[in-house]
């Protein structure tokens, strides 16, 4: 009787142990399947956009600014209006002497200058900085706006040698932006020349990635964090049961 009881208790403990290990490994397997093709490693990098500085073409006071920081602008849109009453007066006076060749030329020059009082966006992008405020006087070639272009958006990542090797082997490279919760497809564009500044990333390679779909870049901000998802090649995910049976058949062959 005692022997049977001992045996039963031992058996129960064996069963508990085996069940526990089944539970743990099932959990691990389900996690593995869930993560599937998603993320195997994460590398942080930054969005790089081309910076464009808008300068004034003429002398004058800032009359009005039509945009504020962060707003998107399209190429050719009017960013601000300068006012130069001297120039306007001059144009007005000159227009009275239309017969005079010299005055005519002068007037054309003045008109061009007046045109220059309109500040136009040279790119599609967004406004990062407004350097002057309304009413301020500006000289020609003064910095008015800093824009970031929405075209040719790139992402810069510093990669270790092995990471670079691994990633350049991939068919599909994706990045993830957590602010927008968006996955974007990218391709390697070029390597960054090493400069003195990169002290902290000395042993790494700076790699620029460009977006496969350029319009994706519109919503990204210059300098913001972006994550490189170094996925392995997309594999054919087997059904776990299939996998186990396949493995066994290999053993028994």
């Amino acid at each position: 009787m005692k022997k049977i009881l001992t045996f039963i208790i031992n058996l129960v403990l064996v069963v508990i142990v085996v069940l526990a290990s089944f539970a743990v490994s099932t959990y691990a397997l389900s996690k593995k399947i869930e993560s599937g093709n998603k993320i195997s490693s994460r590398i942080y990098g930054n969005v790089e956009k081309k910076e464009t500085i808008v300068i004034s073409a003429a002398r004058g006071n800032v009359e009005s600014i039509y945009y504020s920081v962060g707003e998107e602008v399209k190429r050719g849109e009017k960013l601000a209006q300068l006012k130069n009453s001297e120039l306007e007066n001059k144009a007005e006076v000159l227009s009275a002497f239309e017969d005079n060749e010299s005055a005519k030329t002068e007037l054309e020059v003045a008109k061009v200058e007046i045109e220059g009082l309109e500040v136009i966006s040279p790119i599609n992008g967004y406004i990062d900085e407004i350097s002057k405020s309304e009413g301020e006087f500006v000289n020609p070639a003064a910095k008015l706006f800093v824009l970031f272009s929405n075209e040719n958006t790139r992402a810069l990542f510093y990669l270790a040698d092995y990471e670079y090797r691994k990633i350049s082997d991939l068919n599909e490279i994706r990045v993830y932006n957590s602010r927008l919760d968006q996955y974007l497809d990218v391709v390697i564009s070029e390597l960054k020349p090493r400069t003195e500044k990169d002290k902290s990333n000395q042993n790494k390679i700076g790699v620029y990635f460009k977006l496969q779909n350029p319009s994706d870049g519109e919503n990204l901000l210059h300098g913001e964090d972006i994550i490189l998802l170094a996925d392995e090649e997309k594999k054919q995910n087997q059904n776990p049961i299939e996998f186990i049976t396949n493995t066994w058949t290999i053993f028994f062959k």
Partner: protein
Amino acid sequence: MKSIKTNYIPNSALLFLIIAPFTVLFYASYVYNPQNAGHKVLYIFQLFADTIAISILASLWITILLDLFQPEHFKKNFKYRKDWLDENLPTVDVLVPVANEPIKIIQETLLNAVQIDYPHKTFVLDDGNSEEIKNLAQSIGINYISRPKNDKKYAKSGNLNYGMKFCTGQFVAVFDADHVAKKEFLTKLLPFFENENVGLVQTPQHFINTDNYIASGTAQAQEIFYKYVQPAKNSYNSAFCVGTNVIFRRSALDKIGGIAMRDHSEDIWTTILLHEKGFETIFYNKVLALGKAPETIRAFFRQQNRWSRGGFSLFFTHNPLFIKELTIDQRLQYFFSNIHYFSAFTILIYLMFPIIYLLFGIHPMNISVNNGWFIHYLPFFITIYLLPWFLLGSIRLSTITTSTASFAPYLKAFMSVILKNPYKWVSTESFTKSWHFIMFDIWPHLLIISISLLAVFVGWYNPEDIVNTSIATVWVLINSYFFLIFIFKGLVVTR
């Protein structure tokens, strides 16, 4: 007689002394560099495990090395004149504490104790109140002492102290029930006591039942201790009593109030108390008694649990590093003995890492860099695993498996010391039934085996990294094999 240690140190041991620093530094330079860290939490565990492993290896290394190169003038001088024995004729009591061991074993021990070559009184101290032993003692003609039930406060130490109330000899020799003394035991050892400062003389435990798998593993692990560690400790006057095959000076024992009253590991506590009082201890490296090592998993774990409890309780309650009365050498040597039992954590962590890698794909080190971790790990692990070969010239599977498996009783002991659980003393040999709630002892091993096997499947389901998955697979399979063979051999006890 100046030196009493075996002067012969095999070349392989010198080889160990030479290559161990290289493999350890090579490994440490990699592991302790945070740039190589992988998973952060696991990395902390890795550092913890490695620090313990390296400390233990380093303590063994430095113990052997220092003893090897110790200048002659620094070595302890031993007075040893055989004539002293004839001139003084000291009186001796031989005590055999027993507690429910099989009568056959006790009988052999008692018969041999009586036949020791020097006039002595033999006492059997029976904690089991057995009529059988009483009759046996009468028929051999030795004294039978049994503690009254209301006096059974401490286990072996209580038994010995109670027995010593009836002894009057100047010296007390102690043999466990399963240790058979040779005839020359007393004549060989007593002359050491000419030096009034010597409090005890200890001889090795030598196990003869090496045909048993578990016993042979214990025997080889013990051999390292008695061949290298104890002689080195002896040079620093810090050899400690192991509870059997030992002679105490009665007056020294009386000065510290008898054997230390503890439920377990009273031997090392008694030695520390003797050292604190300024007594010297001698380890004489000659086999003068033949013992039996535990043969079943249960008995083996019980014994390991008792020893490690001693180590942990000393470490946490009476840490030898901070005992002012001891010399710095003694403090270090005791400390080295204590930290050995922390290896349990290392073993467990090392066992878990490949399993965790297979299951969850995380690893404490950054394994994607050219398998750098493997290149650094391998020499270090070879050094650890081949330790018995380096020091004893042979390596048994049983040694590796039993020492790996003993992480469980160590951890159990650690928990009970931390939680201050009381200890119930049961003698080593009382467990002869091998299939008695065996799962209580081996569930950690069985759990590791079964998780390992399942982890292999999980790991090979869309493996990310074929090379590392292969290494981890081999590693968990080897560990599982060690445990399987340990459990199998432990259950099928061959007599």
